[in-house]
């Protein structure tokens, strides 16, 4: 147990200076982020790059449209839950047109017919009802979300529209489908690669971008004020003052604290 003490101290130290108001489990999230990155580097990114490079245009277009059609299906409910009648009907109309005329969503006829694609989902609907984002979560294999926005994934999984005509999707079908979805989504993120890799702290950059973007969408692109991601200037001033005080007092009592840390190291 004693051996764990430095570990807890480290965790507490990490908590003492939170970088972001919405990321209480940052050390855990960072761990999952590193794991995701390793998987991405080894498998997902090469697959997405191959898809980008070798798939003919119509295949990429078709893949984008197919998954976009499922997005539209859930967007219609997201819009409906916010009382946005015209968005909901446009989205539903898109699903009807594209699933039938568009061959299960592979071709996007609805856009040509003037049915607008709307950017709504269940997470946004909850947000518009005043549900806060909750903690930021980095999901294994999936990437950034928040507790509130994870409802979207749950709904997508349990109310899967593909179950309507294929209620008995076996595991391998599911795996293939979610892999294809993941690879298509990853392909769409490829242009952002350079942007993220040049950041001093890519994890923090992605997190702050995700949180701002979702906040912006919940407010229908017109938020009342910018999202306060980290400590305010006043809070930072207070933290600096406290730190200064601490270094002063610990400098005064340094000899006394030495044996204690020595014990922790020697302990079996």
């Amino acid at each position, binding site marked *: 147990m004693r051996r764990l003490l430095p570990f807890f101290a480290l965790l507490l130290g990490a908590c003492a*200076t939170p*970088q*972001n108001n919405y990321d209480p489990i940052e050390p855990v999230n960072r761990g999952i982020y590193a794991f995701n990155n390793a998987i991405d580097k080894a498998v997902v990114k090469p697959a997405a790059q191959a898809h980008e490079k070798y798939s003919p245009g119509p295949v990429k*277009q078709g893949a984008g*449209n197919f998954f976009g059609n499922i997005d539209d299906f859930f967007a219609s409910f997201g819009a409906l839950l916010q009382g946005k009648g015209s968005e909901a009907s446009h989205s539903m109309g898109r699903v009807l047109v594209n699933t039938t005329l568009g061959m299960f969503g592979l071709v*996007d006829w609805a*856009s040509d017919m003037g049915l607008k*694609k*709307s*950017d709504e989902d269940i997470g946004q609907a909850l947000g518009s009802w005043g549900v806060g984002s909750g903690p930021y979560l980095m999901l294994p294999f999936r990437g950034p979300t928040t507790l509130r926005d994870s409802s979207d994934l749950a709904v997508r999984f349990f109310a899967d529209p593909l179950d309507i005509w294929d209620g008995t999707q076996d595991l391998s079908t599911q795996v293939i489908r979610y892999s294809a979805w993941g690879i298509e989504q990853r392909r769409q993120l490829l*242009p*952002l690669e*350079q*942007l993220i890799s*040049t*950041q*001093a*702290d890519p994890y*923090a*950059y992605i997190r*702050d*971008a995700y949180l*701002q*973007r979702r*906040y*912006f*969408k919940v407010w229908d*692109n*017109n*938020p009342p004020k*910018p*999202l306060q*991601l*980290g*400590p305010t*200037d006043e809070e*930072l*001033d207070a933290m600096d003052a406290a730190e200064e005080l601490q270094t002063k007092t610990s400098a005064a009592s340094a000899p006394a604290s030495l044996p204690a840390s020595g014990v922790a190291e020697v302990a079996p």
Partner: protein
Amino acid sequence: MKKWILALSMGFIATCSLAALTESPELIVKNVSRDVLEIIKKNDKDPLKARDLVDTRVAPLADYNRMTMLAVGRNWKTATPEQQQALTREFRTMLVRTYFSALSIYKNAQVDVKGTRPGNDASEMSVLTEVSLPGQKPIPLDFSFEKTDTGWKTYDIAVDGISFINNNRNQFNAIIRKDGIEGLIKQLSDRNNAQRNTNK
């Protein structure tokens, strides 16, 4: 006669530069986005050339100094003038390299000005636009302007609600707390140099 022409052309030039000074943010965004899209289209095969041309076109209208100041936040005051210059230089390089090199995917894009939003006072204003690509959801692109002695200048851009300033302030604060202002300058320039080496 020659004097007349000279006087006329002088007058013309004066009105032109005066017009540039009083150009509204909305008009600036319209003109710049038209020119930028043209640059991207013309240099489709050479993204690096496109990046440099866009940089040149945008530079007189962007207030990189204020942008950096706001991104660095409260620690800006404690930085020396040399440090402030270094921060601005590295931050600008980072923005230009990352954002402007990725512009080629927007060669078929269309930028529509949706309207403006007043800022905190009369010297601030946002221009709201939407970038649309065929068959995709339009992406909101908002420009924050402030009025300076040399006309309206942009000090922040938000892509889909993600503001340049906000998205960096948090990271920058954390780095400065840990490694100081010099640490931040070093991190930024190291990243920029690494990019320069991998990227022609």
